[in-house]
């Protein structure tokens, strides 16, 4: 199943009987994933440094006595690796059951976050029984934090530290930390207070990498009771010029939330507070739903498209008749798509033969 020919001189290893070439620095996890064997994991996020905490990704390596975590073990020439055996599978099942037993619930709504289904999927895959072990939750929920965006439901925390690591490594803000060690370990913010008073910028990246929904998208969760299946549509954030790729989450005709696109060329899974949470202006009741024209009393009143377009056209025609074609000016938007800007300039150039066109970049 190798997607590369093992050329002369290139280091290779054997995974489940097949010879595979690899690049120096690749982990066993990465090499396996590349040949189509995605190993089970909970603490893994391909954008982050491997952490080796959950042990679900263990594999057997010939000549090494105990199974090793594949995410933190680098591939080496001549290694012979087995990714699945009866023992390893039994061990994984036990691990999943232990982790799941700590949590109040395993099935969480997918609106909680991009990775929120990882634990429940593993439970299903291993047919694990969540209550088999007496577990203590790793954290305590912070119902007191009144921020509108991030739910801190730490009862569901499994101490994979993906949130801490995404904050430090991806966002670069170090707003989330780890308090205490060992059995007392808790995910927290500096000073253990509300997020608003911390270094948190509410980018939402912790929410999107959390594998259990312990950190969750409070705003999207308002849509939990909206009937219908979640559908995702790939588009681009409406705000700044970075152009982050996002997936719009809809249920029927309702826009319920936004998730970052992990493969977005500009953002690779990152977003900021605006792109992540400021989406609901779209279906706001203030939206203009009908054309409006100013009446004789000076008020803007509802009109049909025909009336409004005729009135608009008539006004331009009249101005050209009275003042000439250089009296008309067009301003395109920096927030509407190309087709709007292109047609706006075409409208001016075709209609009036001038270059009296600009956009709002000067403001």
């Amino acid at each position, binding site marked *: 199943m190798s997607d590369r020919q093992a050329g002369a001189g290139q280091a290779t290893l054997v995974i489940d009987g097949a010879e595979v070439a690899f690049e120096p620095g690749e982990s066993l996890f990465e090499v396996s994933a590349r040949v189509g064997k995605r190993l089970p994991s909970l603490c893994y996020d391909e954008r982050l440094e491997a952490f080796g905490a959950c042990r679900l990704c263990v594999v057997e390596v010939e000549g090494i006595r105990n199974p090793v975590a594949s995410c933190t073990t680098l591939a080496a020439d001549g290694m012979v690796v087995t990714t699945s055996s009866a023992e390893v599978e039994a061990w994984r099942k036990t691990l999943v059951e232990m982790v799941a037993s700590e949590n109040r619930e395993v099935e969480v709504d997918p609106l909680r976050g991009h990775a929120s289904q990882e634990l429940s999927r593993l439970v299903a895959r291993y047919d694990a029984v969540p209550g088999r072990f007496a577990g203590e939750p790793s954290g305590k929920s912070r119902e007191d934090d009144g921020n509108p965006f991030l739910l801190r439901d730490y009862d569901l925390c499994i101490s994979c530290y993906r949130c801490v690591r995404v904050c430090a490594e991806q966002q670069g803000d170090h707003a989330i930390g780890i308090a205490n060690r060992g059995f007392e370990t808790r995910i927290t913010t500096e000073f253990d207070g509300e997020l608003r008073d911390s270094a948190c910028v509410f980018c939402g990246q912790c929410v999107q990498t959390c594998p259990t929904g312990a950190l969750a998208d409070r705003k999207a969760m308002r849509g939990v009771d909206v009937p219908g299946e979640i559908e995702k549509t790939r*588009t681009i954030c409406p705000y700044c010029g970075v152009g982050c790729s996002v997936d719009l989450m809809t249920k029927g005709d309702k826009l319920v939330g936004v998730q970052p696109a992990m493969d977005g060329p500009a953002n690779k899974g990152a977003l900021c507070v605006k792109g992540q949470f400021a989406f*609901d202006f779209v*279906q706001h009741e203030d939206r203009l739903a009908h054309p409006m024209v100013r009446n004789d009393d000076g008020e803007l009143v509802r009109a049909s498209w025909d009336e409004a377009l005729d009135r608009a056209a008539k006004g331009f025609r009249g101005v050209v008749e009275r003042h000439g074609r250089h009296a008309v000016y067009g301003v395109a938007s920096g927030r*509407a798509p*190309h087709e709007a800007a292109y047609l706006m300039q075409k409208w001016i150039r075709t209609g009036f033969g001038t*270059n009296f*066109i600009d956009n709002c970049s000067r403001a």
Partner: protein
Amino acid sequence: MSNPLSDMELPNVMFCIGTNMTECHPVAATRLKKAKAKGAKLIVADPRRIRLAEHADLYLPLRVGSDVALLLAMAHVIVREGLVDGEFVATRTRDYEAFRDHVAEFTPEWASAICQVPAKDIALAARWFGEAAPGAIYYTLGITEHISGVDNVQSLSNLALMTGNLGKVGGGINPMRGQNNIQGAGDCGAIPSGFPGFQACDDPANVAKFSKAYGREIDCEKGITKVTALDLAGDKIHAMLIDGENTVVSDPDKGHCEKALRSLEHLVLIDIFETDTAKFADVVLPATAWAETDGVVTNTERRPQRLRAAVPAPGEARPDWWILAELAKRLEMPGFDYSGPDEIFNELCSLSPIYAGLDWDLVGTGAYQWPVPEKGHPGTPRLHETEFPNGRGIFKKILYRDPAEVVDDEYPIWLTTGRRLQTYHTNTQTGRSEGIDYFVPHEVLEVHPEDLTAWGLADGQLAFLESRRGGIEIRVEAHPRSPRGTVFSSFSFAATPINDLTGSGYDPVTQTAELKVCPVKIRPVAENEPVPSS
């Protein structure tokens, strides 16, 4: 940007000037933080101690509007200390000798007197940038929204040229664009100087091409900018069609702007909300919004990407392109029969050399950065790798000029404006998104704590802030981010129309308004005192 966003993780020295990147382009800033974690040095020049400055290895708190002085002195040091990339200068540039002689007199000590940054820090910044391999420059409106905006950009270009940092992986000059399709609006020809693809509209060959394509004789001369058009409203300009821009809140000198719009005989707006600008409109046409519209937008690294509709628009709202096409047909303009946005985008590609190799389907995954001169071309992540548009990069001799207005006895305080992390532009969108007001319920004026005391103000108090053009009431907030003598506010709240005050001058070339510098005075207001009119 000359270089792709992914290059932001690669420089070993990053020079950020006039860019509040962690608030205005947050995801781009995460890449700089990653470069820093790998050991790169970060130099930040900004009047305010912004969050990015907290990450900096060297912070240069320059006085608003003094960028040229700082940059001249950096060039001076790079020459003096022999850090010029001789080979790049010899093979890729022009007019270096004249530039070298020009900067000889602009020492860090000279600049320090103007920009109030210690001379030794200016020299250190120059040394770091001169020794960088590669060094990258990032800037935003803090560079362009000045009467010397073009001079500022050219000064940065001089720095990049003399150090050979153009056309290199991890280098470049990188302006960060502030709106999701502001780059695209230019690409599409919605500018008075160029047709789609920045083809000059005073070049007879281009004029002939578009006159033929559009079936109409087009003037062979540049149009006027929006700023000039507003100046001429009621005089030479009598009708405007404005798409999606809340002009009276976002533009400088609100009083002037309102007067201009009022003096038009005919104003048609296309928008998604009834904004403050609608007060002046004769007709308001409802457009579909983001998430309701299929289309293409181009980001700051020249990457066209697809917008996709996911939900229906409210009521009778229609896509901008449909509205424009209908309006064209009613004015008997030829060539506006389109079946959908794909057809329009493909027409744009056929007329624009930088998009010639693209079409609606090809931009679907955002895999290309323009120029894409023909089908099969992989796109151009980095500009200027082998040559510049005019062959060689030209050094420009720039002189420092004061801002249009400088502080004096009557208006002793510098006001500078910008955006905040959570609110966007005039807040018509973020203000209608639930939860944003948890962070930013209303506008405040950020004032250094010691200035508050010196000016007889208490933290949180209402104050009257006034420039030569107008005054507003605004709440003050003690903020160590503001330097002594400089105050800051965003332009996101119509209730605090800071642009009543701004608009002291415009760059003579681009006519970009000097929104970053405005001398003001301030005084406390008792909570029940009537607002003075000005």
